[in-house]
């Protein structure tokens, strides 16, 4: 402690160290208290404490230390300060004693100052040994006796300066090193590199990869403006880019830039990743541009191909009418899915981007995952047909059937990257198939249970596929002898009866055949029997309409046919006997009338002869009797002859000929010419008559009877007229009159203005011997119209009359026309 009395001017001020020195207990040191200090010490300490320059003093043999505030930072924090004050040198600097002791000793021994610039003196400060550089001088301080008592250190820490210099030196050496190694580095670089110098981008260094990229040889390019040889690239703007980098120093990077390069004697489009980076000198000045490039043409075109194929696939997928999906990666992530597939899955639209397994967990137990995995791993496509797949649709597990394929998708490098899934929903088909099978079963069941004989014969050999019991019974064969055999092998007795032809025809043409009462001879119960069958042979088709065989349905109508044949036989016999009797009858009529005619004629002849013989001299009464006999015999002759005529109409020996009815009519009118003239009759023919096939004599008889009737039944006081008109009979009338259909008929009317008759008698008049008038009024036998009726029956025609009493009659005849 300093007492006020111990106050010394040289210790005034001096900052922190000044105070520390003043308060220091120097009594415990070898130099003793301040008052005991020699003057040179006092003077030196005063200088140190008041100097702004870092100073340090060792004094005495123990080299007790003094230093000032300026020196203080060199000791750092938590270091030797403040302990270094008043401490002996050895105590304070053990770590550098070997460095400083020789220096100190030399100054003490010789008195020569010592000066060192930027000397490394590592010291302990800030908790560690630090490299500290100093520029310092050691100089001797003499005591009052002229002996060297201390060493004054005036120093300046130059650590920062040295470090700056060192850093500079390091950079420079690195630069030198890099320049010398640059060529090697560039040459060995695994990418194309070059350095282009100056504003013209002169190729200074470039590696082989770069020459390959350019498609040039070294000699063409080196030390020349790069774009002199790369004209296409210059055109495409790469020189401008490069110039910009050269001017601004901003690095320019592009990935997959398309550039046209003239390589292998052709302009090629290449894709390049590249970096243009300013190349700076040590002073930071831009001297050129360093180019690093990677030719990714292959990769890009592969990627483009991939994109192209992906796009193709995508459009294919989206436009496809059938379900398509694309799943990528081993996890089967859904990347594409068309609406059809979305619909099939029934899982909503939001499935793209999810994995197959996420969307369709129900397929895990259905082996489908492993199919997908196999395709992805092996690259072999997988196809399934008619595969049952159960899908959960709207929360409900439903059965579907699909034809589906898993096809591997390859990327540009030939690696499988995904699987394409195409599918066809054949559920409906399968259901249809199942239904078809069901209906097929039903059909077979129906065949077996049918109440008629049925069988199915398959193929061109007509192999018995099914035959029901009734059919077996009809065949007279057991199940074993016919089943699954060609029908004519199982049923050899049916051969060569024309059935082969029928079955073949149905099988080959598909036209069904219907047969009625077809006799087939078969061995049944050990003997030949004729079986009459009504059968239908129908083509038996599959669902596509292809003919598989013949379905035969047969009904055994043998008893009916036999019964009918029996009846027919009886009818035939009866008919024959009836015809015989008819013939006999008409023969009888003919012969009897023929024979009756003779005596009648004789009576007539001889009455005449008698009258002539008697001459005029005769009793008037006798004359009357003779007249009566004469008339009766004449009438008898007429009757007989009419009966003869009508009996002749019944014999069918007359020939049908094509005749012109106009000619017939003309002849008949000629025959009646006298009577027509006598009655002053007007005959009108309104329409030409047709040609028909008929028996000529009968037609002339017919017309003759009708004309003669018209003339006969005329009114006394009226001019007689007969009109003959002809027309085609209406089709509706053909039906009304119950005539044979499909034939054209002619309608001929004979219209007179005679006495007529009551319509109620219209049908009676055609009966034989039917007369409506007294014999005395109108001559006639009552046979004429009966003959007409018979003639029209012979000609498949019709006759009817329409009349009113006293107002004429119309006789209409209908005859088939010969077209």
């Amino acid at each position, binding site marked *: 402690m300093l007492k006020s009395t111990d106050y010394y001017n040289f210790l005034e001020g001096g900052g922190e160290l000044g105070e520390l020195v003043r308060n220091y207990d120097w009594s415990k040191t070898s130099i003793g208290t301040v008052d005991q200090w020699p003057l040179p010490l006092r003077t030196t300490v005063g200088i140190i404490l008041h100097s702004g320059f870092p100073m340090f003093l060792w004094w005495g043999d123990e080299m007790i230390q003094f230093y000032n505030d300026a020196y203080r930072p060199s000791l750092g924090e938590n270091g030797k300060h403040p302990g270094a004050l008043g401490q002996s040198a050895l105590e304070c600097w053990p770590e550098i004693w070997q460095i400083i002791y020789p220096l100190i000793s030399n100054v003490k021994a010789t008195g020569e100052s010592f000066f060192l610039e930027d000397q490394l003196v590592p010291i302990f400060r800030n908790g560690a040994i630090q490299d500290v550089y100093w520029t310092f001088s050691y100089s001797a301080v003499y005591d009052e006796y002229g002996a060297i008592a201390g060493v004054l250190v005036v120093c300046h820490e130059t650590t920062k300066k040295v470090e700056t210099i060192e850093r500079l030196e390091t950079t420079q050496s690195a630069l030198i090193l890099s320049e010398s190694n640059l060529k090697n580095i560039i040459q060995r670089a695994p990418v194309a590199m070059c350095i282009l110098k100056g504003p013209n981008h002169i190729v200074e260094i470039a590696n082989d990869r770069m020459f390959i990229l350019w498609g040039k040889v070294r000699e063409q390019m080196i030390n020349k403006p790069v774009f002199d040889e790369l004209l296409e690239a210059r055109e495409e703007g790469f020189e401008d880019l490069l110039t910009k980098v050269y001017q601004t120093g901003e690095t320019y990077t592009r990935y997959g830039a398309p550039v046209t390069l003239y390589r292998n004697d052709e302009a090629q489009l290449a894709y390049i990743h590249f970096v243009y980076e300013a190349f700076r000198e040590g002073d930071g000045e831009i001297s050129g541009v360093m180019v690093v490039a990677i030719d990714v043409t292959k990769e890009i075109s592969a990627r483009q191909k991939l994109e192209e194929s992906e796009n193709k696939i995508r459009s294919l997928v989206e436009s496809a009418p059938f379900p398509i999906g694309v799943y990528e990666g081993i996890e089967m992530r859904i990347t594409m899915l068309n609406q059809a597939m979305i619909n099939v899955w029934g899982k909503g639209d939001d499935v793209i981007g999810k994995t197959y397994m996420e969307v369709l967990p129900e397929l895990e137990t259905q082996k489908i995952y492993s199919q997908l995995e196999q395709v992805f791993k092996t690259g072999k496509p997988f196809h399934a047909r008619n595969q049952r797949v159960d899908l959960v649709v709207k929360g409900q597990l439903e059965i579907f059937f699909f034809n589906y394929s898993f096809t591997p998708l390859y990327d540009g490098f030939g690696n499988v990257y995904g699987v394409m899934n195409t599918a066809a929903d054949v559920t409906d088909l399968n259901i249809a198939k199942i239904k078809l099978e069901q209906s097929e079963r039903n059909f077979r069941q129906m065949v077996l249970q049918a109440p008629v004989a049925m069988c199915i014969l398959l193929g061109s050999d007509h192999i018995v596929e099914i035959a029901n019991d009734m059919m077996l019974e009809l065949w007279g064969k057991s199940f074993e002898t016919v089943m699954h055999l060609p029908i004519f092998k199982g049923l050899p007795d049916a051969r060569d009866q024309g059935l082969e032809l029928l079955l073949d025809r149905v099988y080959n043409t598909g036209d069904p055949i219907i047969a009625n009462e077809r006799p087939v001879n078969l061995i049944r119960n050990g003997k030949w029997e004729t079986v009459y069958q009504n059968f239908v042979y129908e083509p038996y088709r599959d669902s596509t309409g292809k003919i598989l065989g013949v379905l035969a349905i047969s009904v055994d109508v043998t008893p009916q046919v036999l019964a009918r044949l029996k009846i027919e036989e009886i009818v035939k016999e009866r008919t024959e006997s009836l015809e015989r009797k008819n013939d006999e009858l008409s023969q009888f009529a003919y012969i009897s009338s*023929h024979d009756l*005619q*003779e005596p009648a*004629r*004789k009576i*007539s*002849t*001889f009455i*005449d*002869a008698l009258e*002539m013989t008697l001459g005029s001299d005769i009793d008037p009464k006798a004359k009357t009797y003779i007249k009566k006999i004469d008339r009766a*015999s*004449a009438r008898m*002759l007429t009757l007989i002859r009419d009966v003869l005529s009508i009996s*002749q109409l019944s014999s069918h020996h*007359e020939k049908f000929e094509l005749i012109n009815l106009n000619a017939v009519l003309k002849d008949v009118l000629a025959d009646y010419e006298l009577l027509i003239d006598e009655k002053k009759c007007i005959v009108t023919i309104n329409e030409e008559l047709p040609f028909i096939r008929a028996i000529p*004599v009968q037609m002339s008889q017919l017309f003759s009877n009708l004309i003669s009737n018209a003339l006969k039944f005329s009114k006394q006081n009226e001019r007689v007229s007969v009109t003959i008109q002809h027309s085609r009979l209406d089709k509706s009338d053909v039906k009304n009159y119950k005539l044979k259909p499909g034939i054209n008929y002619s309608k001929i009317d004979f219209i007179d203005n005679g006495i007529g008759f009551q319509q109620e008698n219209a049908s009676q008049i055609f009966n034989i011997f039917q007369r409506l008038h007294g014999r005395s009024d109108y001559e006639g036998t009552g046979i004429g119209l009966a003959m007409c009726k018979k003639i029209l029956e012979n000609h498949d025609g019709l006759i009817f009359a329409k009349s009113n009493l006293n107002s004429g009659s119309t006789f209409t005849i209908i005859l088939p026309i010969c077209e």
Partner: protein
Amino acid sequence: MLMGDMIQNLMLIDDDEDDREIFLTIVEDSFPDFSLSIATNGREALQKLQNSSNPPDIIFLDLNMPLMNGRQFMQAIKTDINLQQIPIVILSTSSDNKTRSDMEILGANYFITKPDKYSAWKEMLSDFFLNSPL
């Protein structure tokens, strides 16, 4: 020219006695120069013709006769070279067209239906002989 000048010999073939009588009476009354030979059926007539050295100039033939009817007679005479040229007049009560045409086919020259009256007979025969259509 009158047929009567040429016709001398007649033959009538008819089984009917009355008709033969009427025919004969009329010929005798009206044409006394004519000679008339008579047969009652075809066979008899054929025999007479074949045995005769003086064949008739014309034959009147009935059709409906026993033993050999008119049709059979026609067939026979038309195959006989010596007789086939003799004109034949069919004299029948049958007057239907079929019989007429059958007989024409067999070679008959004329067809007369036996009249119902004596007067008609006479008229018919006179007419025939005077204005022979042959």
